């Protein structure tokens, strides 16, 4: 463990750490463009030059390719270093189009930031002599390139080479004609293409979805996790609701990956990145709905709950608890499932309950992040005691089949859009064979039309909630903004039901519910809402997985 001095402050750092990372430990930011901790070091931007003194010899070195060594004295703020940075910035800015007013990256652009911090020079470059390159190049379905803004740091090129192994981008031409472009005949069309936008230190690569949407300084940022699959990538939700004239519906402007070395490092998949559109979709269910009366009257939540309660009570009285089936969802949070279990399993003694369905396991799986299991909380559901339904070798699919065959009077479906999964014929059969269908969903769909009663659910960005990913890591989403319309949290609905059946559910928030889970469920003992923190915590007794450096298993040779 070498001891070194950075700007006069002594620090002990782990072995093999470069100076950029070592300085970060002291909260000293050494400016850089090409360096990224997740990619190989190329040392081409020359922005991170610092003064290094070792053994009495002073020299200028690039911090990204200099390993911290014992007795090293690093100066990051001297006049010499400042002059070097200014000279490099001048090189970068001589041909830069200076179109910050219309650039999406303005406000989070490293050229801007470093210029304000280290440059502040006047341009020696006459405007008419500036070089022109390609603009508005659609390098892929999600990404647009403006070559004039590009600083040729090659982060995106290395990402496509080292992380995804797809090699779609390259720097072509040499000298002053060097330019970032697609490899001939290839589009940037991999599952992680949005990451190159995060990597781009300037506004050269922009997300088609976010282009010209919002100035970044208007947006607010909330930490959360992606609920698109069982990985649970850590994200930031960038949202803005005050400027309705731009787009009256859209609240989330974009999602950005949030670093978590155990889960997703710096990356996230395009599916997750653009998955937010469901939250602000115009198809959202915002009010309860009933098809029973058929007179266009919109019921209140309490009316629907009262009617459903009556149906459940009647069914239990007539045929017992076995006439009720609950098709729960592993996309629900621990709190939802805890309340659901308390109501149906513990109080009403309903046996026909499952949340594992094969149609949810058909996502794309790869070695980077994506998981075939598209539910964020399957492991959590199992830990909470929601076990596969039926006897040996049976499960949720069999429960659904039994419902179709008419074995149950009351069928309660949470979140699943059965209309898109079952054929018309099977669906009609289910409708005909079931006395009463209650649907709790987030979006208008065929099944919401078919169910007797429908209750609207809040989505992940509108609520707090905790989920256990496939590794056994418990992580949480945070409340970003209030639910749309009259949408409710799922646990809130079960609590209202519970009141009708005499269930004691004193907790009135997600935090309380999670803390109750911690007290009563073995796997969650020692966990509280606050202990989850920003990066989550492992289930009781599950060891932290080893830190996996995410990269393709078929990299191009790099030495």
């Amino acid at each position, binding site marked *: 463990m070498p001891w070194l001095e950075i700007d006069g402050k002594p620090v002990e750092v782990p072995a093999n750490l470069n100076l950029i990372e070592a300085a970060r430990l002291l909260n000293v930011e050494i400016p850089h463009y090409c360096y990224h901790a997740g990619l190989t070091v*190329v040392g081409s*931007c020359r*922005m991170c030059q610092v003064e290094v003194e070792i053994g009495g010899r002073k020299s200028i070195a690039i911090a990204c390719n200099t390993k911290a060594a014992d007795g090293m004295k690093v100066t990051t703020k001297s006049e010499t270093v400042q002059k070097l940075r200014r000279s490099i910035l*001048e090189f970068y800015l001589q041909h830069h189009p200076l179109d910050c007013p219309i650039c999406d990256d303005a406000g989070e652009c490293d050229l801007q930031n470093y210029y304000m911090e280290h440059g502040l020079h006047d341009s020696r*470059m006459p405007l008419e002599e500036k*070089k022109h390159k390609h603009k508005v190049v659609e390098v892929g379905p999600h990404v647009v390139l403006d070559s004039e803004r590009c600083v040729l740091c090659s982060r995106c090129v290395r990402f496509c080479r080292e992380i995804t192994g797809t090699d779609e981008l390259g720097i072509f031409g040499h000298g*002053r004609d060097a330019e970032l472009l697609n490899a001939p005949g290839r589009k940037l069309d991999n599952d992680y293409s949005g990451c190159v936008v995060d990597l781009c230190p300037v506004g050269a690569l922009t997300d088609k979805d976010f282009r010209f949407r919002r100035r970044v300084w208007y947006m607010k940022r909330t930490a959360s996790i992606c609920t698109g699959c069982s990985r649970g990538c850590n994200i930031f939700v960038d949202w803005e609701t005050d400027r309705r004239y731009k787009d009256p519906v859209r609240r989330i402007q974009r999602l950005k990956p949030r670093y978590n070395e155990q889960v997703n490092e710096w990356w996230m998949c395009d599916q997750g990145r653009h998955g937010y559109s469901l939250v602000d979709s115009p198809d959202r269910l915002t009010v309860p709905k009933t098809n029973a009366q058929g007179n266009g009257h919109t019921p209140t939540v309490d009316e629907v709950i009262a009617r459903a309660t009556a149906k459940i009570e009647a069914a239990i009285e007539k045929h017992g608890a076995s006439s009720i089936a609950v098709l729960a969802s592993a996309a629900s949070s621990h709190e939802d499932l805890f309340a659901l279990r308390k109501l149906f399993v513990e109080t009403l003694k309903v046996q026909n309950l499952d949340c594992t369905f094969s149609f949810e396991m058909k996502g794309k799986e790869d070695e980077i992040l994506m998981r075939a299991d598209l539910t964020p909380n399957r492991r959590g559901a199992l830990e909470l005691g929601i076990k596969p339904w039926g006897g040996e070798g049976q499960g949720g699919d069999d429960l659904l089949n039994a419902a179709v065959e008419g074995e149950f009077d009351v069928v309660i479906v949470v979140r699943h859009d059965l209309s898109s999964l079952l054929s018309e014929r099977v669906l009609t059969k289910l409708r005909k064979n079931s006395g009463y269908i209650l649907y709790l969903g987030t979006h208008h769909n065929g099944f919401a039309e078919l169910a007797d009663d429908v209750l609207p659910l809040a989505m992940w960005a509108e609520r707090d909630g905790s989920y256990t990913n496939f590794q056994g890591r418990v992580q949480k989403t945070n409340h970003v903004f209030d639910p749309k319309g009259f949408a409710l949290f799922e646990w809130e609905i079960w609590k209202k039901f519970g009141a009708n059946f005499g269930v004691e559910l004193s907790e009135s928030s997600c935090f309380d519910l999670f803390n109750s889970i911690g007290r009563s469920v073995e796997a969650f003992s020692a966990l509280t809402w606050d202990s989850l923190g920003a990066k989550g915590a492992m289930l009781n007794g599950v060891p932290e997985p080893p830190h996996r450096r995410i990269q393709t298993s078929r990299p191009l040779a790099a030495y």
Partner: protein
Amino acid sequence: MIGNGSVRLLSKNFDVPNMATLDVAMKHGAYDMLKRAMKLKPEEVTELVKASGLRGHGGAGFSAGTKWGFVPKDKFPRYVCVNGDESEPGTCKDRLIIERDPHLMLEGALICAYAVQAERIYIYIRGEYYYPAKVMAEAIKQAQAKGFIGQKILGSDWSCTVHLQNGAGAYICGEETGLIESLEGKKGWPRLKPPFYPAAIGLWGAPTIVNNVETLAFVPRILDIGPEKFAAMGSPKNGGTGLFSLSGHVNKPGVYELPMGTLLTDLIHKHGGGIPNGKKLKAVIPGGSSSHILTADECENLPLDFESVAARGSMLGSAAVMVIDETVSIPQLMHWMVRFYAHESCGQCTPCREGTDWLLRLSKKFLEGTARKRDIDDMWQLADNIDGKTICALGQAVAWPTKSYLVKFRHEFEALCRN
């Protein structure tokens, strides 16, 4: 004027007709030294070369034997790369060696490969050198047929193959790590240092010795005359002779083989026949276009070896001496030089990519008559911002001469300025 000089060590057989054919070459002793070397232990060969004081003739002047000694003990496979990407303006010696005596270079490369126990030799020849590459290909074929290349060479346990690769015309591929990248099939972008020496991590990550054509061609001669005699031929720390490419305003331009440490004025006047038409000497570029320019005064009494030229504030480099008489405009010369480097910059790191282009635009102003005095200082400052701040030495290659032209001939630039 080819290979003419005061001594004929390397260029001994340059005038022999058909020297490129193996039969003729063998009559003149080709591959005898390989046989002699293979009777020694590999380390002994390295020691011999180290003792001879042979310096790299590609430009940096690094001790060849020391470089061979950098190969890690237990890392295999190992490679030898022959750098025949001779692109420095003014340099034309490697071409001559390959055309006139390819077996000499091949033998030297094989001895080097034996010394480091390499299993393959890559000969990287500049793309524009079409004819030399053809000669070399034929030489390799013949040497292979005779068993000097291939499996179990000369009945030993050591096998070595030779692979000829043509470049595609990039100056930067003459930089050793750029050459390696190019050989690997990638864009010829020089690698980041550290790791400093390809001898430890080179081609495909394996230990690789990259030596210039001329350097390797000297190796059989060292074995022939012995390292002591070789070392004694040159000046201190600079063993043997060197091929000097003399060009510019001299009566007899050409490649001259002279002992290291020969006086620059001797080269120009005694061997080169002086400056034509009785013109006065203005300046000399002593080591290829990337070296600092020397004024006429600085050329006096200057021995041409690596240390002496460096002491005068320039470098011997590839020993391409360009003589400039009083008719030459230095701003024009600079524009020509900067244009070359701006064109050949690989575009990898910022100072060189952006800086060379900017220098080019500024230097053009002097020719167009739009320059102001401020531009002289701007150019010097720009060159200084490139100098030493880049991944490879191309940054220095443009910064050094630019700075020296601006400082030593500032009056000429000022004369071209407006106001």
